[in-house]
């Protein structure tokens, strides 16, 4: 039985607490990295992370990319969409195909 975590600034994520997800409000990149590393070692299957925070944690995200669990998924925060999530999908396509054929550079 796995759990789901939501990581990000408090304003963006407090709503998820009502759904029954576990929220971990973090203030800065450093704290975020520490919390993410801790969560990765526990029994979380999915970790949602706000795009604003994910931007500073590229190395951590890359590390999680290869392993089966947890799935670290960027979601837009309260300050809007930074395009990081869709860029990660683009990155997957480029890695697999060699060039971006799904988004056509948009």
């Amino acid at each position, binding site marked *: *039985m*796995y*759990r*789901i975590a939501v990581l990000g600034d408090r*304003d*963006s994520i*407090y*709503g*998820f*607490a*009502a*759904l*029954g*997800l576990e929220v971990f409000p973090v203030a800065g990149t450093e704290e975020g990295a520490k919390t993410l590393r801790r969560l990765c070692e526990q029994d979380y*299957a*999915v970790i*949602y992370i706000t795009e604003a925070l994910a931007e500073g944690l590229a190395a951590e995200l890359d590390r999680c*990319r*290869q392993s*089966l*669990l947890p*799935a670290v*998924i960027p*979601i*837009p*925060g*309260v300050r*809007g*969409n930074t395009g990081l*999530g*869709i860029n*990660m*999908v683009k990155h*997957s*396509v480029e*890695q*697999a*195909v*060699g060039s971006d054929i*799904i*988004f056509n550079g948009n």
Partner: protein
Amino acid sequence: MASKQITPTRMELTRLKKKLVTATRGHKLLKDKRDELMRQFLEKVRENKALRERVEAGIAAANKNFLLARAGMQDQVLNTAMLAPKQRVSVESGIENVMSVDIPTFDFKTRTPDQNDMFSYGFAFTSSDLDGAVKSLADIFPDMLKLAECEKGCQLMAVEIEKTRRRVNALEHVMIPELQANIKYISMKLDENERSTQIRLMKVKDMVLKDAHNYETF
């Protein structure tokens, strides 16, 4: 041209021929694997893109609602309302095998049987915007989980496709041409040896005949 020193023996030739058969077969299999993985990956990544667009739009809308709710309420009241969550979500994770790539599948369960039973506060002291905001987030949640499953699958498949592609290319452009060149080199060398032996024998025969009967054959 052979890149390294090879011994032109019959044994080496047999060994290389066997290796070539294996390499060709491996190349064909890996190519098939790559093609099928690619087909499934493209299907999945299209789904991933659609899901992501839907989820991002949904979360943006929910965030707007939360902002409105915050504007209409005191911070403390809001904090108290969210303090003790009533609902709890747990996830069952399975493993699906797609062309020897393990990708996770998620199935979520809520603690209370009714999924809409998630408001952890009384309705008297909170703004109705908050109810709408929580509901809009709850509506998008199944899609979010599907997105997690799909996106993780895409990432794992992308890594595997990259690996397989490199293997296919290495076999196609390095291993197989090199083996073919080596085989050609050995067989030519062996032929050459055979011819030289033949000529030597003919010469020796001539010499022997000349010695014995004292006549020329040519």
